[in-house]
């Protein structure tokens, strides 16, 4: 039977490290300093094949496995334990014969002997860390202690009880950390199916202590719980054309990728519970009252969310626990996972979202939350779900499932599964201070802007994940950015459409002004980094791809081409498995815009944007005619070379030169200067005119007649990322014009380019990227004439009125108790927050 073999685990990726040469590229520039920022990615992307085309679409022999589940699961509320039995039907659509199958055992991540647990560092848990360099002993924070205690008290991880085939015969299995291999009795040929069953159990983690994607959230005051179960049953690992079995161990970060299939799940819980789950409830007659069923029906066409379970009913449920049990049955078709939440605390509201003409004409948007989450949840949760469906569907495809649910499972954060999301944010409990006069009718709970926009934002983000990656099934274990980056981009777009000046990236905090501070920093990794290895995850996997896609949409491609290509990507890969190259290729294929330079810079490198205007030179066309040009040259020379001061003073003193006293010594050189036109000059000019082709002479004559201004503008690429050059040109009259030179301007010189502008009027000033659309990290070098840009602090100091008010306030506050805020709780200063336990 099952054997744990943690010590023998060998990841293929590890052994590959030894053969990686310093230069991985086959193409190398070994002379000079030429860097081809526009080199096509063909060499670097995987070779197209019958499964994935060179245009980024699924190939004509694209395949993916199908896995259908029937699960019975029982929640033991008191023991905080799950016991389940699943029967799985696995269909091998690959061209390969499979002798074994791999399953994911994500709960094993919480075992003491897991790779995740054993490889934890202080970074992961805030635990032990040697602070010798700071002259400190080791320190441990409360969270790490509580987490360790929780792990000491309870054995976590799967208990795999029984694995049998359809005839009840035991299937040998081997557990390798968070993965389990089933050795099939007979090889599974291409196109064939096999069925087997697994009995399993595990202890549910206290999520607030242990930290995970599911668990229970305990409410001390009422001694009640919300259970939210995710990654809770042994699930088939993905078997793909691009990676074989995706069985890289779960380390807690790189989430998962799974196979699509149909689910039928029977969930048995205490009878006072309300259950929210992936899919559609099959037996409302057994678990809901007639009145609740009527409300659910009414909600289908309601204009406002309707309570299916009211706050009063939820309060009653939670006060009177039931000894009875109830089984909730759910079915879900063509989903890649199944999650659920259960509690006797849940209020439930619902409202239908109509999609006329879609495969799923009615979608039930629903929310589940405890009274502790009110009043903000009934006001905003379901509305935010509906808004997300509207915007995301416009950018991708009609929402493909019958339900979209938002569950308040925890105090902060969010997590996504098909048709169901777990979302944080609850209002603060209002506690009047000692001096506060009790106000009649004062709310017992308030919520801040932070909570409000945090809630709306997290719901948009997590519901958005039902599109990416729950429907467009990218591989999160490998590439966090493919779902988090694309989804953060769309949640930003949706937030802007929720209300103007939505404070995620309000006008003053353009994400493109926000990201450069990160992009110039040392702790960057390329966006194309495997999930578990990404440093600074929020920026590299969420915000930087968001910024990149905004730049593509608004500046590089334009909305029309971007939106068409993005929709095509969504349509092509809906219910399929895209890889990064499929995204890159589709965006180019559908838009007709070469973006290899963009992917190379923004996704494969850690360069940032800093482009400068380094010099501007102004010219006019010379006529070449010495009778025209030489007098002009003389004036210009005189302007440039003022008369020598000593000579001026000699004259002022009335001093006569030798030549003035002896004029007979003068010859032609005294009469003519170097700008005097000679006959030789005139002859040369005539010869030159004769040597010109007629069209050349016409061009010259016209240029002389038009008398235009000619500018040579030098740009330098200081940050490394090549980008388009959006340029505002203002002439002497104050009129301005906006032009954008495409990024291809950099193709022959990555470091510096000179652009020629020919204009009717003189240019007074140039401003590069005035609309802040390229994520330029330094705007002080973007102007001609160079503008003395004041730093933020200089600007702040220059506003004397505000400054004085602030100075007075600081002084006032400092005077009390030597600068410590009089109303403050004792702020731990310096190292005072470290209490020595001795």
């Amino acid at each position, binding site marked *: 039977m099952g054997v744990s073999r943690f010590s023998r685990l060998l990841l293929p990726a590890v052994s590959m490290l030894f053969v990686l040469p310093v230069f991985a590229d086959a193409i190398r520039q070994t002379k000079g300093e030429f860097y081809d920022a526009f080199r096509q990615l063909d060499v670097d992307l995987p070779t197209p094949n019958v499964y994935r085309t060179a245009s980024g679409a699924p190939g004509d022999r694209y395949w993916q496995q199908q896995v259908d589940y029937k699960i019975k699961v029982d929640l033991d509320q008191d023991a905080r334990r799950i016991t389940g039995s699943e029967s799985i039907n696995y269909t091998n659509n690959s061209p390969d014969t499979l002798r074994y199958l791999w399953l994911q055992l994500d709960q094993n991540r919480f075992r003491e002997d897991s790779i995740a647990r054993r490889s934890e560092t202080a970074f992961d848990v805030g635990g032990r860390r040697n602070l010798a360099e700071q002259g400190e002993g080791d*320190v441990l924070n409360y969270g790490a202690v509580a987490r360790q205690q929780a792990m000491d008290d309870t054995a976590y991880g799967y208990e795999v009880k029984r694995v049998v085939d359809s005839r009840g015969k035991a299937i040998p299995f081997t557990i390798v950390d968070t993965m389990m291999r089933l050795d099939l009795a007979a090889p599974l040929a291409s196109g064939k199916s096999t069925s087997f069953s697994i009995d399993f159990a595990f202890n549910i983690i206290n999520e607030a202590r242990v930290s995970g994607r599911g668990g229970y959230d305990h409410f001390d005051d009422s001694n009640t719980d919300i259970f939210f179960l995710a990654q809770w049953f042994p699930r088939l690992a993905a078997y793909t054309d691009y990676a074989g079995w995706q069985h890289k161990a779960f380390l807690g970060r790189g989430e998962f990728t799974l196979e699509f299939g149909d689910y039928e799940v029977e969930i048995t819980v205490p009878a006072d519970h309300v259950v929210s789950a992936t899919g559609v409830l099959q037996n409302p007659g057994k678990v809901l009252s007639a009145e609740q069923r009527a409300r659910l029906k009414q909600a289908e066409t309601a204009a406002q969310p309707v309570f299916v379970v009211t706050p009063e009913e939820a309060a009653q449920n939670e006060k009177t626990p039931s000894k009875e049990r109830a089984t909730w049955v759910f079915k879900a078709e063509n989903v890649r996972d199944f999650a659920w939440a259960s509690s006797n605390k849940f209020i439930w509201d619902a409202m239908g979202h109509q999609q006329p003409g879609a495969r799923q004409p009615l979608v039930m948007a629903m929310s589940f939350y405890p009274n502790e989450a009110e009043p903000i949840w009934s006001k905003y949760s379901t509305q935010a779900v509906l808004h997300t469906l509207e915007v995301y569907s416009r950018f991708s495809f009609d929402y493909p499932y019958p339900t979209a649910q938002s569950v308040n499972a925890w105090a902060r954060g969010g997590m996504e599964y098909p048709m169901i999301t777990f979302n944080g944010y609850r209002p603060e409990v209002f506690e009047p201070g000692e001096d506060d006069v009790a106000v009649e009718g004062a709310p017992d709970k308030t919520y801040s802007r932070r909570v409000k926009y945090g809630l709306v934002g997290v719901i948009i983000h997590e519901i958005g994940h039902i599109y990416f990656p729950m429907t467009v099934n990218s591989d999160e274990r490998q590439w966090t950015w493919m779902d988090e980056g694309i989804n953060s981009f769309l949640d930003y777009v949706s937030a802007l459409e929720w209300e103007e000046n939505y404070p995620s990236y309000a006008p003053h905090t353009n994400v493109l002004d926000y990201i450069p501070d990160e992009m110039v920093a040392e702790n960057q990794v390329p966006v194309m980094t495997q999930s578990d290895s990404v440093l600074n995850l929020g920026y590299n996997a969420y915000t930087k791809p968001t910024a990149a896609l905004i730049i593509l949409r608004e500046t590089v491609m334009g909305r029309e081409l971007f939106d068409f290509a993005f929709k095509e990507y969504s349509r092509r890969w809906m219910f399929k498995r895209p890889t990064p190259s499929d995204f890159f290729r589709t965006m180019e294929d559908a838009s007709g815009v070469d973006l290899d330079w963009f992917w190379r810079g923004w996704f494969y490198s850690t360069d940032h944007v800093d482009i400068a205007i380094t010099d501007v030179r102004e010219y006019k066309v010379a006529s070449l005619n010495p009778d025209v040009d030489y007098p002009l040259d003389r004036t210009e020379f005189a302007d440039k070379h003022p008369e020598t001061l000593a000579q001026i003073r000699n004259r002022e003193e009335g001093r006569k030169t030798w030549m003035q006293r002896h004029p007979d010594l003068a010859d032609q050189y005294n009469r003519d200067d170097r700008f005097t036109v000679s006959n030789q000059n005139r002859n040369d000019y005539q010869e030159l005119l004769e040597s010109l082709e007629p069209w050349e002479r016409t061009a010259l004559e016209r240029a002389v007649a038009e008398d235009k201004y000619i500018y040579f503008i030098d740009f330098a690429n200081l940050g490394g990322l090549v980008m388009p050059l959006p340029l505002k040109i203002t002439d002497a009259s104050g009129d301005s014009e906006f032009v954008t030179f495409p990024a291809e301007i950099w193709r022959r010189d990555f470091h510096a380019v000179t652009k020629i502008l020919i204009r009717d009027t003189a240019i007074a000033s140039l401003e590069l990227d005035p609309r802040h659309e390229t994520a330029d990290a330094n705007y002080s070098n973007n102007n001609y004439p160079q503008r003395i840009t004041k730093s933020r*602090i200089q600007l702040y100091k220059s506003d004397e009125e505000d400054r004085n008010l*602030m100075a007075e306030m600081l002084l006032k506050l400092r005077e009390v108790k030597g600068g410590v805020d009089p109303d403050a709780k004792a702020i731990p200063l310096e190292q005072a927050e470290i209490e020595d336990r001795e």
Partner: protein
Amino acid sequence: MTGPSGRAAGAVCLLAGLCLSMSASAHRLPMGMTTVTYNPVTDSVEIVHRLHRHDAEQAMVEVMAESGVDLLQLTVQARLALYTESHFQIATVVDGEVGTPLPLQLLGAEMDGDYVLIYQELPERLPPEIAVRDDVLRDLFPDQVNQVNITTTSGIKTLVFKLDDSWHKVRLE
């Protein structure tokens, strides 16, 4: 929970703070960004702390023990500035040890969209090696991470403060 072998077997400390809660799929990470830049025009080092308004407001709720604080109020901004001043330091490094703190001057704070900026200034150049401590919000939120970008002649030096970090030393040339 064992101490390091040798010197101080009992010197295991507990950091005050809320229990650790790493959000499973962080929407917006609680992150502070500080830039330290020499300005040749004013011959001073300019320090700009950028905090997310929501995080800063929640922090002031804790610090001022009041609910519903609003950073649009000058007094709240000033308190945040004082709080920041007491939680951020730059010190000299002497013989590899953290030396004396440099006299940073607190200028104030202002809102910038969804962020609040706190300004400090040092009317001199930075020494070639410094130590930096950035505890801002980290005493209140265990998953707060602060990043300090220091502009040098050869590029940006980045320091990241999280969990139980205290002083970080950095050479600037």
